[in-house]
């Protein structure tokens, strides 16, 4: 966590929840734009950054990961996009590469496939598997929890 982030988290604790939500809305605006307008190659980055900010700024959102330790890897098949979300002790950290040990690893064809898999209102997971656009390895429960975090954030941002 950067000094700026630590300071923000500390400060946000003093704020009432509506103001915390306002801050989340501001800091996750890139994700909001992605979800309200068009999914671009920046979607995964925006989602993870949005989650990171929300976990820093919102106490109620942070409660979602109380006591949660887990490593979720996201990567494209060609490894051009590869990132790891590490949850530990109420914090989330984003790493710019795919860890080799993980609880769950999601390999996706492109960001649109990932968006469809995680957040689409009309998910057709069988279709994702059918078209081989998403492949999951490991403990699915970690992905389910991550899916909840993602959907809870989009709900808070009003773009669910």
């Amino acid at each position, binding site marked *: 966590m950067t000094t700026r982030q630590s300071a923000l988290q500390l400060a946000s604790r003093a704020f009432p929840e509506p103001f915390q939500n306002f801050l989340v809305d501001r800091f996750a605006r890139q994700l909001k734009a992605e979800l309200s307008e068009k999914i671009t190659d920046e979607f995964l980055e925006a989602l993870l950054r949005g989650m990171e900010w929300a976990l820093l700024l919102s106490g109620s959102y942070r409660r*979602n990961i109380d006591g949660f330790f887990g490593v979720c890897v996201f990567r494209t098949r060609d490894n051009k996009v590869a990132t790891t979300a590490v949850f530990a002790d109420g914090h989330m950290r984003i790493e710019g590469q795919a860890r080799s040990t993980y609880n769950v690893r999601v390999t996706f064809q492109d960001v649109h496939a990932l968006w469809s898999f995680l957040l689409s209102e009309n998910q057709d997971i069988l279709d994702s598997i059918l078209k081989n656009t998403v492949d999951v390895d490991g403990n699915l429960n970690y992905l389910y929890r991550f899916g*909840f975090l993602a959907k809870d954030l989009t709900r808070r941002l009003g773009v669910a």
Partner: protein
Amino acid sequence: MIAVQDISLRDVKLAPALQSLREAYFRAIPEVCVERPRLITQFSAEAGLFERERITSLEKARLYRRVLERRTPVVWHRQGHMRTASGLEEFSFDDSSPFAGSTTSKFKGVPLYPEFMALALWPELWTMSRRQSNPYYIGEEEIRILNLEVFPRWMDHNLTELARARGTEEDRQRMQLLQKFVFFLASKPNCISHTIPDFSRAVREGLRAILNDALERQDRTADPSQQDFYQAMAEVLEGIIVYAHNLSDTAAGMAARTQDAKQKADLTEIARVYGRVPEQPAQTFREGLTTIWLCWTAIHLENPNVGLSLGRLDQVLYDLYRQDIDAERMTVEDAVQLLGYVWLKIGDHVPMVPAAGEQLFGGTGSNQAITIGGVDREGHDAVNELTYVMLRAIELMKLRDPNLNARYYPGVNEKDYLRRLCEANVNTGATPALHNDRAVIQALTASGHTLAQARDYGVIGCVEPGSNGRFYGHSGAILLNLPSALELTLFSGRHRHFGLGNIISMETGDPSTFQSFAEFQGAFNLQLHWVMDQAIALNELFGRTHQQFYPTPILSALFEGPMESGKDLIDGGATLNASGIAIIGFADVVDSLNVIEKLVYGQQPTDSTLFQAITKNYEGYEALLARVRNPDKVPRFGADEVNGEKNAIWLAETLHEATHTRRNYRGGYYRVGYWSMTNHAGFGRFIGATPNGRKDGENFSSGLTPCSGVTPHLTAALHAVANLPAECASNGMAVNLKFTPDDGDRTRMLDNFTAAVAGYFDASADHGTGGMEIQFNVTSHRDFIEAVSDPSRYDQLLVRVSGYTAYFKDLNPQMQKEIIDRTEYRLSSGDAVPYEPFALTKGAGHDN
């Protein structure tokens, strides 16, 4: 004894109060209930069970007893949630059921089992109430409880993860295979369930007597594990008794408070009945039903609501029914009303199906089969007056659950009874399913039942037979995508879904280089065994994990075998054990083999054009496709009495040989059956064009039904199925037929309907034991089409899928299309009615 003059009981109608409750039932959408998962999680944590490497029966029993004692004793429900134009809204209704208690705390609930697969609902908690099909209501507080208190505790402790942690590297690779959905589904991560408890002793003697029996046996044995097991049974039985008493006390309290004289009387009677049963022997028909109902709720506390079945209720309850009728304490009409209320209770829950499962299982109920009719253990006619009363109650209620199955023994049961069963199918459009006792009993005796045990069979889940109250057979353990074995054969161990550059199983050679059809069959056999091996190995791993973590003391206490053996069901305590495999895509594979034999290896020289055509989805091969699909050119299963059936018999025997000597972790054997639920649509999406002319992604034929469009005559279609050896299908079969409902005059239609079934069941007509099972949809093509475009007008349209019954509106579009496209026969002529294939449009059928 059958004293009623009119076995159709057509003058018996639903009473207004029951009718009103039924309407509320249809209005209500299922609601997620968090009571069970919250209590189970809390008590598991308090008892340190999350840290254990093994959980004993006694530890589980103490857990369940606490839950039974603590769960909310709901006597009458007052609220539900319904769908409106602006979303889900609460509505109120009057409940007057004589049966208190419920499977969940909701009027119509979704019970959650976090020990198994409930966590799949986690990503959907905020959105499931907005699902287009099969939405669930859930409140914000309940979301909070699941998200923060329940689900996190089970992330590494549900069955799949416990098995993964204990499996080998090979097992983990098999789990990867499972997660692809392409080859098979293994259902143990979700449940075992799929069985029929023994209610007869609970009804006859009461739970206190069973409990005392367990304690006496505990005193007599010196084996510490048996001592613990008997104590476990006593704990859970005491828990059920306490739950009944809590309901009794609650009803008494409500009676004291109400000013309404009728309600006061009703509640006072509930308090009296629940104060007596299930603890004591049932003395009336109503008390017998109450005992079964209360035990049923307890069984569902322990075992997920998938395929648990009630068995031969017309036999278990007949004496009590007869006593009440003879003593004029009850009329036939009263009995129908009581059954109607119990049917609503039985249907008070739906299985949790996450969005990901909609394509495979969407629209399924809990598949709680009830069995009526047939013969008794001595082989005598067992159809009684209660058989007809139950049939009438089913006919009037027209519910998805319970799933009624009727047994018929040709030559022993009366023809009028068979005709009445056919009439019920016409009246309901879809129920009951009919089973031929002669064929089923032969299949069961060939798979290890004694003759008396086989004669006392009941139907489990969809269509699977097993001896009533003594057979722990997990009939739905594995759902096997049979065309995937064909795919591996066609591409020498590769699968188009994964790309033909990857070897998935083993190389068996390029079939275009084979010299004969026998060589192709040999390669197919190898690939089939490979798929079977993967599925069975995984089932065994999951089974052993169940043994370590999920003993079943409640079900064991209500079963024949565990009391005598001193062993939990999960450890092989039942009198009879097995594991079941449902084969999906049988007719497509048979027809593919027929086509390959004739058009590839039947040519001189061998012609492999067909193999090229399937890789191109028949594009550019239209003439070949027309030839393949023409039953006059190529033998087809269900259209050609000799050549079309040869490969069917070979395949059924090959599947039987591949499984029936394999012993499972409980000491039973594997057995195959042919029913597909909705999986013939889901699995079809993973397989490219097949040699029988089926194109990429299209549905497979359901159950054991011949493929649609190639069986122009009913007689030949039925003959083909009836010719298959019954002993090769001891895990049951589903043969789905569609009849035109408005076909001439009703009397003639029923005559022809009855004759068609009798002919199919007839052993003397040169086909072995006769057909084993058959089920119907008797709804017009026009109604189906309209139900797709205007589902609200057809919200109670009941259909047979492939085994279970469902509401048509709840099925996914692909499944709706499959039912619409099934071959429809005119009963007057036995000829298929020609219809164009239904055009699937995006979003169709999803506005329920």
